[in-house]
């Protein structure tokens, strides 16, 4: 029986260290699946771009580089704030951790607001994915292909931002309740890993969609 272990150690683990290492390994394996999921879409991007190189260059001009750049800055800063939140828990500063988690949420929300403006403009002019596409102003074969892959990738990424916000909010509540300490902050650390992956995907999405040609 594990009656000598702290309460946060679940019964099927020998001790806190084993639980911590198992959690981390599990999270990294999940991140492996995330890399391959987004990677599959990046492979589709590579194929479509190889098939229609000129169309891609023409179509990407429809994207606003300023908004994309701001979103990049926003996500990078949010990675800093969530790293600082976890660091705060490591050194026993739960109030600072809550503040950093709130900052992370605000930055994530900013990202989504900017994406909303980008998406709504595209909906307005008919730059929609696949067979919903009606915009006339882009030269080249099959411009709907560019927007198909754009919405698929930024859409899946945006979904990850929303899910990430939900999990970060949950961590914020648990931190406020005093559930974490320098000895135990693993759930927040795992949340941080997920959030950094979201940032990592965007680091590749941004140049490949906004800055080509």
């Amino acid at each position, binding site marked *: 029986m594990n009656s000598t272990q702290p309460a946060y150690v679940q019964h099927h683990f020998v001790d806190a260290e084993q639980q911590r290492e198992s959690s981390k390994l599990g999270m*990294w394996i999940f*991140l*492996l699946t995330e*890399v391959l999921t987004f990677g599959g879409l990046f492979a589709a991007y*590579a194929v479509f771009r190889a098939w229609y190189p000129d169309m891609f260059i023409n179509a990407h001009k429809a994207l606003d580089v300023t908004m994309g750049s701001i979103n990049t800055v926003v996500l*990078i800063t949010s990675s*800093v704030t969530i790293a600082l939140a976890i*660091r705060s828990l490591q050194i026993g500063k739960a109030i600072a951790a809550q503040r950093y988690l709130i900052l992370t949420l605000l930055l994530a929300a900013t990202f989504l607001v900017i994406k909303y403006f980008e998406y709504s403009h595209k909906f307005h002019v008919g730059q929609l994915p696949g067979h919903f596409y009606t915009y006339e102003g882009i030269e080249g074969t099959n411009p709907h292909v560019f927007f198909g892959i754009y919405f698929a990738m930024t859409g899946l990424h945006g979904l990850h931002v929303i899910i990430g916000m939900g999990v970060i909010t949950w961590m914020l509540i648990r931190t406020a309740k005093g559930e974490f300490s320098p000895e135990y902050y693993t759930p927040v650390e795992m949340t941080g890993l997920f959030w950094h992956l979201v940032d990592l995907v965007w680091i590749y999405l941004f140049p*490949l969609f906004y800055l080509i040609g």
Partner: protein
Amino acid sequence: MSEHSQHGHVTPLKTYLGVGAALLFLTVVTVAVSLVDLGGFNVVVALLVATVKGSLVVLFFMHLLHDNRIYLAVFLGSLIFLAILIIFTMFDTMTRDEMTPLAELVVEQVKLMV
């Protein structure tokens, strides 16, 4: 100035802020380079800068520089298999216009039949 929690290494504040500043600087570099016409090299440079940024995020923010090497192995494994996926898919699609003589014969025959 390095502190230790029960978990071991705590990254210094300066490191997090320094890496964040480097990432923002590299973002400026990426945008600036994209405004210069380097032909085919634009994609290469963009991906290289993105990879440097990604490495900073993975090594420092995701703590892989100081963690057990197994996590780094898992992450590198994902990149290796992703590389195989993309490279072999591109091998396929980039060579589709070339038909072997036998394939050409078959296509001719099928056209005659249809």
